[in-house]
């Protein structure tokens, strides 16, 4: 059974068509990727799923229940964790406290949340930065804190919005290993928006391609990257 089932969603912003009739689904325990040129509507799609925007139409089912139109906090409590493309850390709090806030979502007490937060920080190789203020971190580190925070909420589905951007290739491989491990050990389902194809090809079992707000292709990674429509939309952009 599909964990997330998106059918025919659309979103307009004052006449601008950001998403049109997009459908996709993710089975339990899978890792899927969403790619497409800049402005294709990937982040809008995330924001619709995560409850930041209400879709103009269509339906979104998560874990068998309709979630379209719920608020972001309700969606998180339903079991979807997300990161932001433009990172939004809590700059005045320590790295640990940033993650504790997330962990409180699934913890009965603050003490338990602290334990869970430390566990996630270790998983993401951030434990030695736990006491640093989030404002003092580098951008790749902040992205990892963002991932840690979302993972700490105890989600069934994790939406990752370009968390590999700006990382060095070795760091990308490190992150890929972390996500693969979490996916294998806990069965966490992951949907990632990513431009770093190295990560996409290494992680995703299935790719959805968006262009101008519409889904133009989907399928296994090796097939999708050979799809002439996909090549055209990327090359078209390059030609500009």
């Amino acid at each position, binding site marked *: 059974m599909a964990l997330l089932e998106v059918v025919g969603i659309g979103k307009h912003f004052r006449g601008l068509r950001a998403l049109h009739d997009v459908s996709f689904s993710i089975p339990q325990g899978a890792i899927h990727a969403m790619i497409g040129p800049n402005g294709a509507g990937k982040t809008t799609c995330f924001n619709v799923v995560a409850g930041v925007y209400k879709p103009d139409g269509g339906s979104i089912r998560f874990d068998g229940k309709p979630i379209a139109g719920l608020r*972001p*906090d*309700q969606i*998180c*409590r339903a079991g979807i964790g997300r990161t932001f493309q433009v990172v*939004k*850390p809590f700059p*005045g709090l320590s790295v640990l406290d940033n993650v504790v*806030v997330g962990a409180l979502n699934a913890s009965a007490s603050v003490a338990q949340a602290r334990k869970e937060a430390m566990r996630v920080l270790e998983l993401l190789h951030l434990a030695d930065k*736990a006491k640093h203020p989030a404002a003092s971190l580098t951008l790749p580190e902040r992205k990892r804190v963002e991932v840690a925070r979302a993972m700490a909420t105890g989600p069934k589905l994790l939406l990752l919005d370009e968390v590999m951007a700006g990382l060095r290739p070795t760091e990308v491989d490190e992150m890929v290993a972390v996500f693969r491990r979490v996916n294998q050990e806990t069965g966490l389902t992951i949907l990632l928006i990513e431009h770093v194809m190295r990560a996409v090809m290494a992680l995703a079992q299935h790719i959805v391609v968006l262009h101008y707000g519409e889904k133009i292709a989907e399928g296994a990674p090796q097939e999708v990257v050979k799809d002439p429509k996909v090549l055209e939309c990327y090359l078209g952009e390059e030609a500009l």
Partner: protein
Amino acid sequence: MNMLFDGLPRRALVALGLFLAVLLVAPWLVNAYILSLLVVVLYFAYAGQAWNVMMGFAGQLSLGHSLYVGLGAYAAAMMFTKFGVNPWVGLLVAVATTTAMGAIIGFLAFRFGIGGVYFAILTIAFSEFVRVGFDHWPWLGGSGGLFLPVANLSSNDLLNLRGAPIMFYYVMLAMCVAALGFCRWLLGSRLGYYWQAIRENEDAAAALGIPVFRYKMIAVMLSSAMTAFAGVFYAFYYNNLFPEQIFSMGRSIEIILGPIIGGLGTLIGPIVGAFVLTPLADGLSELLQWAGIDVPGVKQVFYGICLLLVVVFLPNGIWPMLARRLGLEREH
């Protein structure tokens, strides 16, 4: 209880204990003038702590806290003068009134996405609205003021809050300690984490499962409830209430200066701010009087300059800097 002192270095505990001990014996060591000054300092420390819950912890800027002081004061004074109810029971009425007011303002603002400075404006608008209302409400004295029967200073009646300044001093000291402990507990609780997350970034807080609206409402209501006591105290200490004074924006500014100068969002900041600002301003007034300069407004200009200097040069306030220098910071 242990949790209250967790992570504090030994020297910080010693310093806190010493400070409290000094405050406990102070009334017997100082003259009447200093005592009255200390009462005002504690009043601002308490009110500042209450305001800090809303702005310092949850990031919601209220510039109309005199509204809650005034409502609390009028509620308890009304119960006392009109119905003969003692101020501690009156406090319940006061808390109910201010909490309801806070809820109304919070609902109006947060439901419709009025945030940041526009929220601050709304708090001022409500404060002014209520001030004008009380000005035109003859049953509670209108603009002519509401007066409590003046106390007989020789006997202390704690139940009715009638007595000498020393009694008010200890009452306020107890409330300050209670507020400090309560705020310490709040900060370490789920509530405190959620508030700080909302303060730092609302979108991120919501994405982590925090119902932002509900927790902002709790912050406003809790802060206004705490502030009610400052109002009750004001009414029974000064024995007279004028809408023009108690609801004035100047009063709101006086309340928030302490925490901002002391250190926004910190537990000790409001206390440090009150202990720095009140004696400074009062000393200045005394000095001017002594020099024969009797011009209204000088004290306020001084406040303004203090605020300006702190905002420009010490944006985090005095306490964080002081704590670092003295090694009194909390460890994780």
